[in-house]
């Protein structure tokens, strides 16, 4: 091409109006620099304060529950069933096992339904999908006590208080969180990968299984654990359904104890030793939710790393 471009004098610059405008802009930039820096500093301080205000209740809560709760812990606390007030050596073993069983069954009920509904939302655009999505969003906001009442009306009122009715209530509570979480997780799978699968002659269902669900596993695990963590601490639905029990029970058809019920019932008595049990139970619940979150995150992180 032309070598004279390299030797030619530089273009003679901008027209005078633009040059004047450039000067104006640069002068304004210098003139306002100090004010802009001050504003930036002010905003930093504001955000910093907000962050501290957010963390204070969290740290205070964790600290206080730990302080009161750790004192109540002992081996017997984890291995024994409750004793009446004034009799030492009681524990919440039945509540711990009860919480595991009730939430486990709720997870088993809600997880497949949540995944299937999420898949439907991804694959079907249109009024039905919009209604379901709207319904899930509304359901997320429904007070848990109403969900408890619902389970009471459709199950307990026709039978009796039972652990499985509690699981149904918690499953209803988990479902909307799972649906939206699963949907978000699977939406991250790009359309190009769907098409890559289809272009190889795969059936839709096979693409969903081998490409979409497989790729979304970290997100799916996180979404489901989030829903579980939310359900584990719910109290109101349990009061209408599992109702609580002093006995150790493994039967889903019987009333069952659970950690939030212990906190609610023992915490509101006038007896010091029962109150202490309630603090202990609160600490166990808090630690459990924390462990659940950590497991979820590490699991998700490991899967993501592997796929890189």
């Amino acid at each position, binding site marked *: 091409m032309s070598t004279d471009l390299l030797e030619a004098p530089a273009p003679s610059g901008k027209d005078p109006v633009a040059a004047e405008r450039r000067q104006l802009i640069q002068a304004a930039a210098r003139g306002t620099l100090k004010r802009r820096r001050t504003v930036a500093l002010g905003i930093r301080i504001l955000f910093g304060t907000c962050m501290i205000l957010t963390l204070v209740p969290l740290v205070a809560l964790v600290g206080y529950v730990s302080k009161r709760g750790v004192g109540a812990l002992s081996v017997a606390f984890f291995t024994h069933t409750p004793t009446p007030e004034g009799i030492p050596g009681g524990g919440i073993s039945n509540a711990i096992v009860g919480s595991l069983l009730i939430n486990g069954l709720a997870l088993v009920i809600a997880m497949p339904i949540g995944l299937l509904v999420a898949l439907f939302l991804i694959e079907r655009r249109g009024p039905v999908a919009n209604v379901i999505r709207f319904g899930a969003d509304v359901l997320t906001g429904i007070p848990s006590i109403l969900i408890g009442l619902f389970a009471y009306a459709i199950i307990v009122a026709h039978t009796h208080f039972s652990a499985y009715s509690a699981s149904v209530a918690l499953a209803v509570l988990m479902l909307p969180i799972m649906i939206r979480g699963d949907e978000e997780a699977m939406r991250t799978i790009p359309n*190009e*990968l769907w098409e*890559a*699968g*289809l*272009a*190889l*002659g795969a059936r839709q269902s096979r693409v969903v299984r081998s490409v979409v669900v497989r*790729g979304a596993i970290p997100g799916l695990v996180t979404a489901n654990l989030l829903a579980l963590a939310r359900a584990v601490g719910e109290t109101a639905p349990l009061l209408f359904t599992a109702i609580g029990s002093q006995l150790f029970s493994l039967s889903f058809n019987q009333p069952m104890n659970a950690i939030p019920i212990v906190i609610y019932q023992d915490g509101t008595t006038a007896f010091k030793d029962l109150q202490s049990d309630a603090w202990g139970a609160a600490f166990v619940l808090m630690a459990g939710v924390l462990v659940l979150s950590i497991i979820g995150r590490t699991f998700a992180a490991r899967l993501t790393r592997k796929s*890189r």
Partner: protein
Amino acid sequence: MTDTTSAVAARIQQEVLAQGPGSVDLLDAPAAVTLTDVAIDFGPVHAVRRVTFPLAANRVTALVGPSGCGKTTVLRAINRMHDRSGGKVSGSIRLGDQEIYGRDAQPELIRSRIGMVFQRPNPFPTMSIIDNVTSGLRFNGIRNKKVLAEAAESALSAAALWETVKDRLDQPAVRLSGGQQQRLCIARALAVEPEVLLMDEPCSALDPISTSAIEETIVELASEVTIALVTHNMFQATRCADLTAVFLLDDTDHIGELVEYGATQQIFSAPSDPRTEQYVTGQVS
């Protein structure tokens, strides 16, 4: 329009003329796929219409034209990729004797006979190199490990990737470079032993070295599989394609149309339609 584009066009014509007179018998070759009066609509929007041309068996056919003229839309219609995005295809597309949009046509079976390579490399990120290559076979129900391994080696060799990856077949596919990922996607499509391979601007996301490597692969593959190649790059069309279909937008209603189909050399050296001439000499962009 500018001096540079007509200079490019002039160079293309020179290259084409240097290759000697166009062979007419190309046009008499048997067709692997036949498109007859194909039109594609997305709801109320008409994307392309009046598309009639064949994909000659074991030849490379380039689909060229300016942006938005419907060449990718036509390509995707050939293996029913519009089923998912809601595009409506009318007219007739036949794979051999099989009507692709016929009532008895199974989209999955058609897609396993007509493979596709996309604009951007899209290996499955959760799968290893080897699992990517064999995924199509596994999706179609093949479990025999020996068959899978043989198909993988043969497909990776055909895509000129075998020597590069044979010692790390179990590594994640996404660790490969962009050009290698695109080769992997070609291998993945070839492993199913398709009769036709659709390539949608397969080099547009790649650097010049990867591009020329993939172009060589395309030319080599043509002896075994019928290839349709969408490209923006007229040099690529002249380098790779035996036949070329030129698409342009209608001036009045902006719907894409096929304006000319013929041997690549003839299209670029002596186009019969004045609109093609304008396009290949850079007067339409």
